[in-house]
């Protein structure tokens, strides 16, 4: 459900799975996905199979990994919107899904500076404006709230994707394990990050290229292997007298 965008058949597929396996509680998440709670472990492989066949991939909420890209409806449906923020969010998520990180990693794209997608408390946030895209980094809505730092402004979606890939890769190569972007940016300084990504075009392209290479083996849905039978016996209890 990239960018939070979904179709009636997506929602129907999710509802069918919830009905079929008696999911006790469901919830719409802050990252614009749908939670299912209270599932029995033994039901997981069959549920993953049904969801996988409906076109869904794991949301990686359990991982030190890219989570979701929150978006607003953008200029398609909002009179304030300046760009297609939903479409850009989907492209960003197609680029980054499945990537492992030093810690969890969240994206957002807001269609205008009113910032309905709360892009300025994300690890990498985009705020669309009439003349392009403002890129913000190092935000966090957690225990210690931190507003992003303004990285730069670019003019095209292609540039947003390149800067996102480069920033993500720099973070992965430079940060400590379990260090969110907010403390990382404060530790190393925004100046160093700007120097590596903004001032040095060659380095930015090299970082982005490395990110793309690493994504090739990373974008494999871990649910799917289990739905197809990996470690199937793990989900079946052994009963003794």
């Amino acid at each position, binding site marked *: 459900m990239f960018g939070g965008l979904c179709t009636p058949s997506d929602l129907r597929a999710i509802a069918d799975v919830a009905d079929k396996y008696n999911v006790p509680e469901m919830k719409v998440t802050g990252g614009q996905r749908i939670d299912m709670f209270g599932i029995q*472990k033994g039901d997981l492989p069959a549920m993953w199979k049904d969801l996988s066949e409906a076109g869904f991939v794991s949301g990686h909420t359990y991982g030190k990994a890219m989570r979701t890209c929150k978006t607003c409806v953008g200029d398609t449906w909002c009179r304030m919107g300046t760009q297609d923020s939903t479409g850009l969010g989907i492209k960003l998520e197609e680029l980054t899904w499945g990537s492992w990180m030093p810690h969890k990693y969240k994206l957002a794209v807001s269609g205008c500076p009113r910032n309905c997608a709360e892009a300025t408390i994300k690890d990498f946030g985009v705020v669309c404006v009439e003349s392009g895209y403002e890129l913000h980094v190092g935000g966090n809505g957690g225990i210690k709230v931190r507003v992003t730092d303004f990285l730069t402004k670019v003019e095209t979606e292609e540039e947003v994707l390149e800067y996102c890939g480069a920033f993500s890769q720099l973070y992965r190569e430079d940060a400590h394990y379990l260090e969110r972007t907010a403390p990382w940016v404060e530790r190393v300084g925004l100046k160093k990050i700007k120097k590596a990504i903004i001032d040095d075009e060659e380095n930015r392209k090299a970082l982005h290229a490395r990110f793309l290479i690493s994504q090739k083996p990373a974008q494999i849905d871990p649910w799917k292997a289990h739905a197809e039978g990996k*470690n199937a*016996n*793990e989900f*079946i*209890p*052994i*009963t*003794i*007298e």
Partner: protein
Amino acid sequence: MSDWIEITQLDEIPVLGSRVVKTADENIAIFRTSDDRIFAVKDACPHKQGPLSQGIVHGTAITCPLHNWKIDLASGEALGADEGCTNVYDTKVENNMVYLRIPVD
């Protein structure tokens, strides 16, 4: 002490994974470490009875999926600052078969 109970082939337990053994009284979690050692503990964290069998195995410890408590698989004792203990059971592996021994009253 009761006799050894035949549980399953070693290969039927995923490496760094677990299986649940259901007895009449309780669930027992059987773990396999990266070097193929087998441990069995009661499938309930001493903290809030989280299912340890669904946790993450590292070294000879398990991290509970509910609140990140770390339990030593050999002693059943909570590691670090946490205090608590879960039951442990004897295991052995012979000819690739895993055996479990459950004490009787």
